[in-house]
């Protein structure tokens, strides 16, 4: 099994394997290029058909793909002059959340996002992208700085959740998350949030309150992980597929429920197959959205943000 490919992608992996083998052959057969083109065409159409009917559980696997673009990848591809800023000024620098100043199409901005690692060593340093209170407090410090210097804020969300550890509880994980929700609701600068991979519960929302919330096509956003939900409600994590389905965690369903503003289309075979193409699409959307938000007065911006938050919820009366 090719570990670059998820279980349901294995037929694509096989085709790619054949293509690679053909290319490696040293035969001077003229038909090889035709053959390769044919197989590539077949691989694309297979990819298209597999990705056209992903189950919510499969989408959640794509969202967690180890080659998915992370915040640092997106910063590299969409921003210039990134200056990372560290620490919450009280306890530590949490490497599960990164942030700093940068330029977006020449304009000064603040960028904040969760950061996962691609190998074990990095993942230990990044705590698998699961922030502790100091991560959220660093984010808040940077957001207040952005307000002070009139910098728009871009956040990139990709976490399984806030870290449930002893130290995190001792230092007030709940308060750190709550404080961010409260401050982001009234921060006097445009905030644009994008769920890039996993939008894991309060740990995601803590940098996810803004004027616009986008999701990449194969990102997920949920109140609890499918596994967590299954183990509580079904009493077994094996029902994660059912839980993923029941919780409407995909961009498509959340857009239909008006819980997010828009979906960013991903390249064929999802964002991890082509970071650059994804970054180009996302960058265009962010640019247009920023222009839209900057056209509003501060009062309009804050009132719209508030009304957006108040609109969440369905009930009878």
């Amino acid at each position, binding site marked *: 099994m090719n570990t670059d490919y998820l279980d349901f992608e294995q037929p694509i992996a096989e085709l790619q394997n054949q293509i690679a083998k053909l290319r490696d052959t040293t035969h001077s057969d003229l038909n090889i290029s035709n053959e390769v083109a044919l197989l590539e065409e077949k691989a694309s159409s297979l990819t298209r058909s597999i990705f056209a009917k992903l189950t919510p559980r499969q989408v959640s696997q794509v969202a967690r793909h180890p080659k998915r673009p992370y915040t640092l990848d997106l910063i590299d591809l969409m921003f210039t002059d990134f200056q990372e800023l560290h620490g919450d000024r009280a306890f530590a620098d949490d490497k599960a959340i990164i942030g700093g100043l940068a330029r977006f199409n020449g304009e000064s901005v603040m960028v904040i996002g969760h950061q996962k690692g691609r190998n074990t060593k990095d993942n230990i340093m990044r705590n698998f992208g699961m922030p502790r209170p100091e991560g959220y407090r660093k984010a808040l410090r940077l957001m207040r700085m952005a307000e002070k210097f009139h910098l728009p804020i871009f956040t990139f969300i990709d976490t399984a959740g806030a870290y449930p*550890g002893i130290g995190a509880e001792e230092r007030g994980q709940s308060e750190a998350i709550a404080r961010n929700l409260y401050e982001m609701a*009234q921060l006097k600068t445009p905030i644009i949030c994008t769920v890039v991979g996993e939008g894991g519960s309060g740990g995601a929302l803590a940098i996810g309150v803004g004027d616009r919330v986008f999701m990449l096509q194969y990102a997920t956003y949920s109140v609890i992980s499918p596994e967590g939900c299954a183990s509580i409600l079904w009493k077994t994590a094996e029902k994660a597929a059912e839980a993923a389905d029941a919780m409407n965690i995909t961009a498509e369903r959340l857009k239909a*429920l008006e*819980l997010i503003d828009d979906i960013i289309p991903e390249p064929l075979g999802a964002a991890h197959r082509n970071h650059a193409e994804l970054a180009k699409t996302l960058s265009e959307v962010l640019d247009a959205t920023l222009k839209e938000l900057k056209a509003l007065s501060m009062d309009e911006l804050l009132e719209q943000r508030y009304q957006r938050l108040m609109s969440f919820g369905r009930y009878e009366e």
Partner: protein
Amino acid sequence: MSWFEKLLPSRIRTEKSNTKKSIPEGLWQQCSACHSILYGSELERNNEVCPKCGHHMRINARHRLEVFLDTNGREEIGATVTPVDILGFKDTKRYKDRLAGAQKETGEKDALIVMKGAVLGVPLVAAAFDFRFMGGSMGSVVGERFVRGVNAAIEANVPFICFAASGGARMQEALFSLMQMAKTSAALTRLAEKGLPFISVLTDPTLGGVSASFAMLGDIHIAEPKALVGFAGPRVIEQTVREKLPDGFQRSEFLLEKGAIDMIVERNQMRETIADLLTLLQHQQKPLLATEAAA
């Protein structure tokens, strides 16, 4: 269960308990801490606090507000806001049936009750969670009622108090429930703009999405003795860190030690303490004590 009972939809079916009860339910209760056998009505008169050991047992929302607020001038807010099964959510049971079951058990429509009133003559709006209602979980109705309570406080220019008792967000409403964290927190920014106090009372248990939103945004945080308060539940933490948690971890006394709360207040002192705090914050005269007010 007979084949006939199986045919009945679960909403109609009533589950029979296996043990025959020879005494009426609630006549005798056992303290969950010292295991003393207590006379039910005596326990109720003592606001669900064990008269033997002082242990604070869970108290339902309506009872909480009844003992907290002055008798006169109470007015419920948002009672007409009732839950719907937005997603057609079904796990081992339908959300609809869980709602119906909880409504039948508690006599409430959802897990938060909000009332306008006064405490020792100090006007305020108070909200209380009912833990019996699906673990006090926060969904759209809880969020909306909370916001209406805050708005009523703003309109009347009075403080807002919330007694939290919740396992967190309501999974059956999925992302709608997560968004209630942002919605309730945002509402509090408007209360603060008006310079009105918000006192958050943390009771057993306050966890997850409720603790990680408005419950931790009080001007003053009060906890009842020995309440379990935290972001993640103890079991989740134990599974993550693979070690046994220290005694008293995430209890009120621990939170006070770590600087997360201002004080621990016994239930029977709650009225006096909160009335006193509110008058201090609002430059008002010290409220009359309950005994003086009654006289």
